[in-house]
């Protein structure tokens, strides 16, 4: 049998990335400030993890304006949702096998 640990997605090997993905799974889109408050991290920290997820193609960035202020929102992509679900399934099956 294949070791289920191999099914864990390396991209999600961080609490902040897991937080970002969890929040985007249950919300159509979230902007930067709301995400920052939800996860409780600094701007720079959040930005670097967002960048990593974006480069993996798991989240999409949409830049827009509210009046003159920039408003950047983030969405999970189809690939991101699928990868995250697989990661959750892998986590669950590992815990089950250990139990």
């Amino acid at each position: 049998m294949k070791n289920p640990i191999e099914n864990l997605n390396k991209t999600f090997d961080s609490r902040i990335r897991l937080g970002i993905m969890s929040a985007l799974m249950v919300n159509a889109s979230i902007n930067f400030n709301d995400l920052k408050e939800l996860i409780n991290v600094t701007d720079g920290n959040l930005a670097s993890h967002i960048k990593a997820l974006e480069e993996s193609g798991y989240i999409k960035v949409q830049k827009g304006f509210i009046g003159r202020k920039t408003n950047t929102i983030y969405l999970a992509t189809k690939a991101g949702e699928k990868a995250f679900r697989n990661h959750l399934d892998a986590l669950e099956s590992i815990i089950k096998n250990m139990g």
Partner: protein
Amino acid sequence: MNDSEKLSSELRDIKQMMERSSRFISLSGLSGISAGICALIGAWLSADVIERNKSAVHHLKRTIENADSILYGDFIHSRLFQIAVVTFIAALVSAFLFTYRRSKKTNVPIWGITARRLIINVIVPMITGGFFLLALIKNGVYGFVAPGCLIFYGLGVLNASKYTLPETRYLGYGEILLGIINLFFIGQGLYFWATGFGLLHIFYGAFMWWKYEMNNERN
């Protein structure tokens, strides 16, 4: 095994984040209790005004049969309307304070994506109801104001319950049910008001406090 614990806590974190980012979980049961107490005081003051001012009662009663006898403006400036407005503001402020306190305690920001969604969803049915009731008052149909308040408030709460603690929907059902019953007992509005906005809020608040907050308070 240590790994298993780590992974379990990871799963817990994920679940918590999904919950935190989709529902406004700081709503305090004490907010329900305080709003209920404000409503009861308001109802008691109103009953007192009605009692002391028999001519006002006479006036109001006559309007149910004869819609044109009181002008819209008379009602707006009447004592009862003032009590209603003060009661509403007091209930809102006290409810906000307890929820603010809880959000500080649980370290969840009070103003964010979930709070915005909650407010929009409660406010749309309530503003709609507000216009509907103003139109009723304008046409002198005062008897339907109390059941209308209960029904529209209940719909607002039911709508908003998707974005906060799920048990809140039972409060919505309760208000709607009371409003519907009240439709068939026009003239008893004050009693239904006191029950719906007073007692129901207090029961709901006490239950929510018992379920979500009692243990945390002790720690």
